[in-house]
């Protein structure tokens, strides 16, 4: 079994950095990275993409509402309703995983984003013994990227 390497995980990080850079001209960076199987650092809004085919598991992008509001403002979006904040977090999750397909290939099939407000910090049914938790910094905000993806063999 060949597990995800740091290069594999970095693909998602790059995609996030790229997303913020493209939209706001300010890239996002990695704060810390560790492993977890519970007590995930969930924020107000979470976008979830599940992967299938040669891969299994899911990717979570969880951001505080202030960060998303700031992002919408940068996009000149004045409607900052809950619905649009959820939409934004889902779109980021979608973009990250969509961009990662350039690297992982078409055999990482990705779902349409599921958008959840106030997701509890414990996830049931992890596919990995430990999921990767990467804290993403953008401006003074922190968002969480949780990678619970493994290759099927």
């Amino acid at each position, binding site marked *: 079994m060949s597990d995800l390497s740091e290069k594999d995980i970095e693909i998602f990080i790059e995609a996030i950095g790229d997303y913020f850079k493209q939209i706001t001209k300010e890239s996002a960076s990695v704060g810390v990275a560790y492993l*977890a199987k519970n007590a995930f650092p969930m924020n107000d809004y979470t976008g979830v993409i599940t992967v299938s085919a040669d891969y299994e598991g899911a990717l979570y992008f969880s951001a505080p509402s202030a960060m998303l509001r700031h992002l919408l403002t940068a996009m000149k979006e004045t409607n900052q309703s809950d619905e649009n904040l959820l939409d934004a977090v889902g779109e980021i999750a979608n973009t990250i995983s969509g961009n990662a397909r350039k690297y992982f290939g078409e055999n990482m099939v990705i779902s349409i984003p599921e958008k959840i407000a106030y997701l509890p910090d414990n996830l049931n049914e992890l596919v990995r013994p430990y999921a990767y938790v990467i804290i993403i910094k953008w401006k003074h905000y922190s968002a969480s990227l949780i990678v619970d993806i493994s290759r099927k063999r």
Partner: protein
Amino acid sequence: MSSKSTLNKYLGIIFAVSLFLVFNLAVLGLNFYTSSTLHNDAVSINLSGRQRMLSQRTTKVLLTMQVDAAQGKLDPKNTAELKKVSSLFDTTLNGFKSGGTVVGGDERPVYLEKVSDGVAKHSVDEALRIWQPYKQLLVPVINSTYIDDIRLDMATDYAREHNLKLLKLMNDLTTQLEKNTKTKARNLQLIQTIAMVLSLLLFANIVFNALRKLRSADGEIEKAQRETTEILNTVKEGLILLDPQLSVGSQFSSSVSKILQHEITANMPFMPVLEQLVSAEIYASAKDYIELLFGNKVKESLMLSLNPLTEVKVQTKNDTTPRYLSFQFNRVVEEKRVLHLLVTVQDVTEQVTQAEELSKLKGQSSINLELLKKLLQVDTFQLRQFLNNAQTGLDALNVILANADKRAANQGELANQCFRIIHAIKGEAAAIGLEAIETQAHQFEENLVSLRKKTSWDAQEILSLPVMLSAMLDQIRQIETIVNVIQEYRQVNSSAYKPPTISTSVSNNLKRLAEQVCQNQNKNVELKLNLDLLDRMETKTAHQLQQIAIQLIRNGIYHGIETPSIRLAKGKSAHGEILISALMNPEGAIDFIVRDDGQGIVPSRIRTSMIASGRYSNEIVSQLSDKEIVGKLFEPGFSTADNPDKDAGRGVGMDLVQSLINEIGGDLKIDTKADVFTQFAFRLSKHAKPSINLNATEAVV
């Protein structure tokens, strides 16, 4: 090539050919002129020759008439002939004198040019001088209708007297004219010959130049063709030209057959070759892609980024291992139509597999037969304890990672904290012989060493820590599963199975470790252990003491114990001795002692090693006191080992010992004597502080 440059290229030839034509026209004109002149000359010569004949005919007729007259005869025919020849002679002679139309040899009028050169003129003038009286004498003879003896005799006498002279003059004229003509003809011939030669030269020049141009043009084409062939024969990349029918063009590089492992010939269809090489999915994408390329609707830049045939995995029946090929397609466009696709194929197996192996190495966690054997040998209780410890250590490491930014610890300190945990696991793994984990920990350490040197870490470096952590946790989890199975099996098969005591397992571990390190370092060491007291201690403390012993054994063998030959030279026994004991003193405190009979901790030697390592300057080293120098041993990252390996050199062992002592609590006393011994005596209690005695006479036990 534009028509303008074509014109330039041939300008020289066009000019030469024009010159040749003009020159030849001139020569032709000259020829016309020459032949017409020669024609005139021929007339003159002809007529001048006729004059000789006419002069003789005149004389002959006169003489005939005289003979007839003597016989009383007068033949009118003779009179008529005399008239004809004499008048012909007269007009011709006058013609020679001043030019004019005369009757030619064929009774037709021809124009006779007057003679121009001196000799001929003289002949004509002289002849005229003789001819004028002669002519006067002839007139009555011609006109007389009867026989006029007197006049006839007068004329005949004159003729007799002057005939030869006249003949000679006419002869001279002819000769002169002939001579003139010959000279003229010779001159003309010379001019013609020169013109001919010049013309030939010019022609030769044209031919030569044209040939040279053609040859050089041919040469260029040939050279270009030869170069193309050479290129196609030598390039490593496979090059193919595809036409819109997806057939291979007439030229392709010779390497292409080898790269594709398929005989490539001109005009063969390309797609079946590709179909055999790649997976059905990629083939389908590639087919669509190539069609889109020929369609020329989608921009080249977008198409380039969509190429599905980059680093594509192939395995033909000739390949023992899979290879990776990269195809590149470039449109050959003329007038917005894609005429061909230039296909470049490269074998990129090396690059791809290198990258793959590299990434494989890092996250590897595999259960192999070697590991299984080890697991069956090692006591499961002890294994379980190790796994628990390792798990606890790795969990702690994960907490350190998770809180890395909250505590605002610097990256170096973070790396050191991780290092201590990993180093402890590595030591224990080595002690119970779990080489797989030892190796993994060693790789983790190497990564930490490189990270320790950096002031800031990039995303990949930050991510490498949880990735390696995950790999170790994975390995531990797998071993745990196997241990469970083994334990279940043993419980079923022998209910009387009893775990060994802690002191036994620690002793076994330390012996195994010492053996291994000795083997690696080519040294002989006898390990003397007295650890029964461990059975009466808390398991955790016993374990911490084992970890201290592990580090000190490593150091003792690596730095303390000399090689057998050195030991013999020093008058010591060939094999060294390391004594480890846990003893209770009369006050009830526990002393944990590790003592070796090696070369001792000698500050001057440490100084030398510090300078030799290049990491410390002379100045810094000389400023430190002996105690400070020895104190350096406890600093993280300090090492005097030349080549870091699994046994030593990371500079973390003593740091780990220090932190373990801090955890347990107690005092560490180091006694050492150069070339005699080193002793670490740890008295377990609260508030530990190392005290160092560099000149002990005897160990305080």
